[in-house]
């Protein structure tokens, strides 16, 4: 009996030892063998990483007036499961959020536990909703990119998406600089991401705010330019228009207007054709303003002087194509003109003769020297290179046609840059919209260099062209832009508009243009005006001229430019 009891006790002992051994082995396996794995698993469950958003840099005009800033905003979301009375909630929220009550009710009655009601609502709107203390309505702090001047310089500044990523203009082009670098914060929290009181907080990488961008734009000049352009386009019931104001000495773009405009705060409502910057992306046949390139080339080559007298017939037959003037010549008008007068009076035939004297190889080289056929390199997205064929691919007519701005496609930015080379006395210049970038504290500055490569044309030649342009305004086709007391240099242009299908020119559709600068012999500002498809009147002097004059007067007043001579009272 005693022996049997001892045996049973031994069995129990053995079983206990085995069970204890198994438990210890398991513990050893979990605590020692798999220590790393479970430690990581535990840390991953406790450690939460949140992203600290960097503050997006601002965009300023040249006088540090903010054009694009970031403001706090609150996104409003609902948890429909927490809402007891969706009807009343919708009734209260509808007028504040400006959302239809029925639509809002549908959202609030949905099955999910998270529904956006308004992304990036203003703080005022959020405060109104908070004051209602509605159940199931929550907020998330966010940052909103806003454009306080609304449509002003929208084509240059661009716009951003819902997550503040640049989608157009400088906002897009300078995205990497403006956005900064997001940081990472590690904290210990529960599964609902609530911070544990005993937990630690550690910044893994600090956020670095984006740099501010200072542009070359002057917001006052931009405003008067946009106002004058809008007035000009509406006065002639035109389709669109562009104006570029540039400093010919350093390439600074002071204003760049493109009508119709759009509001970058609400860019979604505007079609993409309105949002694109036509001043750098649209290709147009420049028309008579291109005659300035032709005369510059022939004067530089010494083929003629401004005073060389030439016989200029009214029409000119070339390869079965009759080249004629825009205006019918009066019977008593002479048929001999100086090279200067050919430009002043904008004769197509005379300019064609000059180009043919020059020859297509040389003409092509000069067109390239003025910067056509390649991008200017302006710091904006979507720039086109224009359309220019190599002279080997020119047909017999092209040389003559190009001399007065047809059979070639240029962008407005290329045209204004080319004229800047005449205005600054023959120096190569590249347009720029970015001046420099600065840090949040405003100490570090990184400049965008002025790209002035050197002399391209003889100064004497350019002075001659300046004189021709001045005379064009004094006695030629550009008299409408005369401002008493000031020497203005300019040239009018009226180009037939090419058909969309590429088959010839559209009937009755023109692009009216005016390009000029002042003071004529020491230019500070170059202005190019293009008006697309004006109605009733279409000559450059009638349509684009008044826009040029209005902008010039405002700039003279703003810069306090002294008159060259006092006007006769």
């Amino acid at each position: 009996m005693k022996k049997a009891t001892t045996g049973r006790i031994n069995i129990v002992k053995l079983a206990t030892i085995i069970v204890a051994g198994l438990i210890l082995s398991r513990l050893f396996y979990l605590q020692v063998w798999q220590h790393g794995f479970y430690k990581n698993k535990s840390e991953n469950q406790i450690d939460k990483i949140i992203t600290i958003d960097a503050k997006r840099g601002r965009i300023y005009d040249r006088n540090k007036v903010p054009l694009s800033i970031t403001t706090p905003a609150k996104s409003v979301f609902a948890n429909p499961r927490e809402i007891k009375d969706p009807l009343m909630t919708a009734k209260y929220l509808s007028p504040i959020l400006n959302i239809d009550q029925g639509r809002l009710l549908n959202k609030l009655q949905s099955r999910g536990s998270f529904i956006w009601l308004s992304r990036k609502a203003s703080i005022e709107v959020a405060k109104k909703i908070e004051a209602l203390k509605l159940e199931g309505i929550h907020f998330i702090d966010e940052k909103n990119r806003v454009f306080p001047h609304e449509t002003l310089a929208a084509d240059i500044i661009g716009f951003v998406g819902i997550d503040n990523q640049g989608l157009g203009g400088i906002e897009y082009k300078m995205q990497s600089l403006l956005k900064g670098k997001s940081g990472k914060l590690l904290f210990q929290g529960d599964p609902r991401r609530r911070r544990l009181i005993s937990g630690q907080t550690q910044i893994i990488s600090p956020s670095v705010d984006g740099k501010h961008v200072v542009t070359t734009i002057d917001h006052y000049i931009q405003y008067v330019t946009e106002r004058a352009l809008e007035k000009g386009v509406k006065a002639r019931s035109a389709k669109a228009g562009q104006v570029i104001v540039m400093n010919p000495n350093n390439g600074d773009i002071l204003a760049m207007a493109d009508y119709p405009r759009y509001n970058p705060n609400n860019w979604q409502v505007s079609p993409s054709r309105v949002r694109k910057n036509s001043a750098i992306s649209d290709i147009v046949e420049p028309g008579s303003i291109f005659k300035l390139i032709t005369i510059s080339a022939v004067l530089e080559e010494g083929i003629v002087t401004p005073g060389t007298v030439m016989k200029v017939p009214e029409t000119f037959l070339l390869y079965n194509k009759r080249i004629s003037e825009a205006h019918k010549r009066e019977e008593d008008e002479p048929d001999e003109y100086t090279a200067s007068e050919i430009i002043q009076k904008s004769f197509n035939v005379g300019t064609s003769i000059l180009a043919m004297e020059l020859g297509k190889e040389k003409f092509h080289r000069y067109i390239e020297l003025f910067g056509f056929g390649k991008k200017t390199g302006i710091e904006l997205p979507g720039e086109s290179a224009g359309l220019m064929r190599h002279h080997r691919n020119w047909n017999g007519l092209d040389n003559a046609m190009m001399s007065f701005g047809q059979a070639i496609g240029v962008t407005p930015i290329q045209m204004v840059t080319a004229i800047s080379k005449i205005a600054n006395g023959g120096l190569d210049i590249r347009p720029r919209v970015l001046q420099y970038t600065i840090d949040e504290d405003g100490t570090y500055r990184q400049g965008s260099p002025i790209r002035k490569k050197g002399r391209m044309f003889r100064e004497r030649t350019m002075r001659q062209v300046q004189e021709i342009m001045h005379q064009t305004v004094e006695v030629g086709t550009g008299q409408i832009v005369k401002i008493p007391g000031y020497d203005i240099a300019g040239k009018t242009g009226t180009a037939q508009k090419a058909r969309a299908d590429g088959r010839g020119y559209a009937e009755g559709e023109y692009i009216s243009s005016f390009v000029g600068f002042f003071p004529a012999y020491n230019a500070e500002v170059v202005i190019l005006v293009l008006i697309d498809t004006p109605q009733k009147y279409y000559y450059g002097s009638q349509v684009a001229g008044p826009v040029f004059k209005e902008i010039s007067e405002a700039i003279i007043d703003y810069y306090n430019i002294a008159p060259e001579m006092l006007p006769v009272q």
Partner: protein
Amino acid sequence: MDSNNPNFKRDFATVTYGFDIIYRMPSKAQKKQQQRRLRLIVSMYLLSGCFALIGLHFGIQTQSINHKMNLIKKDMRKMKRENESLEYAVLNETRLEKIDNIARNQLNMIPPKKIHYITPKNP
């Protein structure tokens, strides 16, 4: 234990616990030393208490200052946010287009039609 031994003295423990506690009478020097030790211990306790109180006081003060700092930081962040919102409102209200519209439409201002230039007599 010999209770008649004059070197031993019966005390209250005999009555209380029913047995004798026999101890040697401390000498004067020993008494002084004991008193000194006692004073030292008491002063140590007092000093520690003081330190503890001072520590507690500073601890509370630090916590209170930290709390105030956090509140101030929170206020600062709030003010910064409000400032940014106000800056936007100011810029929006003072934009040239708005000023121009008010000048033309509400104040009936018009741009000058003719500008007269005056030549200074002694330039």
